[in-house]
């Protein structure tokens, strides 16, 4: 598949949050403030790019040649968990400012299903190393887009609107997500 098509497909048409339902927990939980949403989005982009590369290498050079296909779920989750720990330690040493910005979001990511989901999808779609990198960065940017949009809407929503009492909190957030998902359906026409 064309690289550009993979990118657009991952970011807009099959948006990781709004059409594949991956990473909903953090999408609902960390979208209260825009700054936090941007931090989370950046951290996910960073980890997803590294994790999909790492899991692709593990799959191609370790699991597939030895016929250990069925161990991929276990192997990938370990790769992701180890990688997140490693990235956290590295950033803490190398750049305290970046750690300040991303630090608290990193542990949240090891249980973020979007990262494992994309790593598994890369293998399922039989992408090349570069293709899976593009796919995961596209998906991560789609996540970034969705969570930042959501946070911006929620900041406005809390300030100006008069929400019925029983809709306050989670329900109105889900209604917002409904409308966003509906508008993202419009991107379906981009690819045939």
């Amino acid at each position: 598949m064309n690289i550009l098509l993979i990118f657009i497909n991952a970011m807009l048409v099959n948006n990781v949050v709004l059409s594949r339902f991956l990473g909903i927990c953090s999408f609902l939980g960390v979208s209260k403030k825009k700054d936090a949403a941007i931090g989370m989005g950046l951290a996910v982009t960073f980890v997803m790019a590294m994790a999909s590369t790492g899991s692709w290498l593990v799959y191609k050079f370790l699991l597939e040649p030895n016929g250990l296909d069925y161990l991929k779920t276990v192997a990938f989750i370990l790769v992701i968990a180890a990688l997140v720990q490693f990235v956290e330690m590295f950033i803490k040493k190398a750049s305290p400012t970046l750690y300040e910005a991303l630090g608290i979001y990193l542990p949240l990511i090891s249980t973020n299903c979007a990262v494992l989901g994309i790593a598994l999808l890369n293998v399922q779609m039989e992408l090349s190393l570069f293709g899976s990198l593009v796919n995961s960065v596209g998906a991560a940017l789609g996540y970034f887009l969705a969570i930042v949009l959501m946070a911006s809407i929620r900041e406005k929503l809390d300030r100006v609107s008069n929400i019925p009492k029983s809709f306050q909190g989670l329900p109105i957030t889900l209604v917002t997500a409904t409308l966003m998902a509906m508008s993202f359906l419009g991107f379906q026409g981009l690819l045939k």
Partner: protein
Amino acid sequence: MKLFLERMKNGLFTENPLFVQVLATCPALAVSTSMINAIGMGLSSTAVLVCSNILISMLRKFIPDKIRIPSYIVVIAGFVSAIDMIMEAFTPDLYVSLGIYIPLIVVNCVILGRAEAYANKNGIVASMWDGLGMGLGFTLALLVLGFFRELFGAGTLFGIQIMPSFYVPANMMILAPGAFLTLSMIMAFLNYRKLKQGNSSTDIHDVTAVGVGFDNPYNVKYQNREDAE
């Protein structure tokens, strides 16, 4: 027996994983397109939950505290791989329609959450009932979502035509927006009922009130980090 009933009630209603604790929203929204998918996902999660709760409860005295989360994840991932292979062999249709969401049971917050909150503190039998209760609670929640989505989205239940023939199915309910819409309406209804009973408003579903740490396993991780430093 008393313990069994108490755990069942707790899992199905008092602490329902989806409607009360708001955990595992990802698989719940993704696979509740039809009743069949909902039952398949619910029961396979239940099987993993019961097995992992039993094993973790057995190992609770041997797993060092510092590395317990990675150990739990490995245990859970092992059972999920087993379920994955079993489903591929015996229910190929369901396996295809659930697709990537079967391996993703690994990161289902309910399972890790129960391991951390219940199985590592309680005995084997109690943990087994807890896993069963929570799993069936999750299945019930999926069935409720699946009921509305399949009924309005396809006019059928379990593939059998229910709606009269002049009803035009609202395709949107099967697609992504329908999932969010159904869950939001159910949550709003639960809030409405709670408000009517006169509970204070702090009790209603509000992810924002607890912020980042609203998800149990995440909370646990945070505490860990602080402990370590």
